[in-house]
């Protein structure tokens, strides 16, 4: 069984700020508890961002995501 759904947290950036930033760069992620609040609490995170990849996504989409996360860190001053 394989899945392309990746929940992640970026140090120092709240997922809602990250989601807003990525949205403005043309990247759609979901942010929040993903209907799994107990798991968020167990993991010790306020919320997470979630990238859901599918058949139509390409390697360049993933590169764009990684690059934009780096830009978000600069924008919010965490790096």
């Amino acid at each position, binding site marked *: 069984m394989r899945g392309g759904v990746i929940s992640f947290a970026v140090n120092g950036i*709240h997922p*809602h700020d990250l989601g*807003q930033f990525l949205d*403005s760069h043309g990247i759609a992620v979901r942010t*929040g*508890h993903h209907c799994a609040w107990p798991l968020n609490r167990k993991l010790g995170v*306020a919320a997470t961002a979630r990238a859901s990849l599918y058949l139509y996504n390409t390697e360049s989409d993933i590169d764009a995501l990684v690059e934009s996360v780096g830009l978000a860190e600069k*924008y*919010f*001053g965490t790096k």
Partner: protein
Amino acid sequence: MQLDNLYQEVILDHYKRPENKGLASKYDVQVHHNNPSCGDDITLNLKDDGAGHLAITWDGVGCAISMASASVMSDLLSDKSPEEAVHISNEFLALMQSKGSLAGDETILEDAVAFAGVSQYPARIKCALLAWMAYKDASLQVLNRRR
């Protein structure tokens, strides 16, 4: 939509260097408000300074909008009487509900006018209002005790 319209420099500054963050050990009223849908969470202490002002300290976790708003609110309302604070809070609420049609009165709201852009992002309005609602709750409790 323009991201910088939402995350004004003033907002990012307050987020990185928040004012009045860290709860004072002495307080008259403490409230705890949170938004379970996104995890924003604030605890707010009010201390009646005996001179008609309610000193605000707070602590919390949340997005840049909610934390910056708490910082700006605490800075703005700490040296105001509860009655003035209610007036300013109502101005801020009106700005948040304006859907971008208001710019905010800087003579009343000072740094808080930076949140005008938030009113165009319906999902983020509750972030900006969290700390203000916590203050409203706490200040009403102080006023009720005085009666």
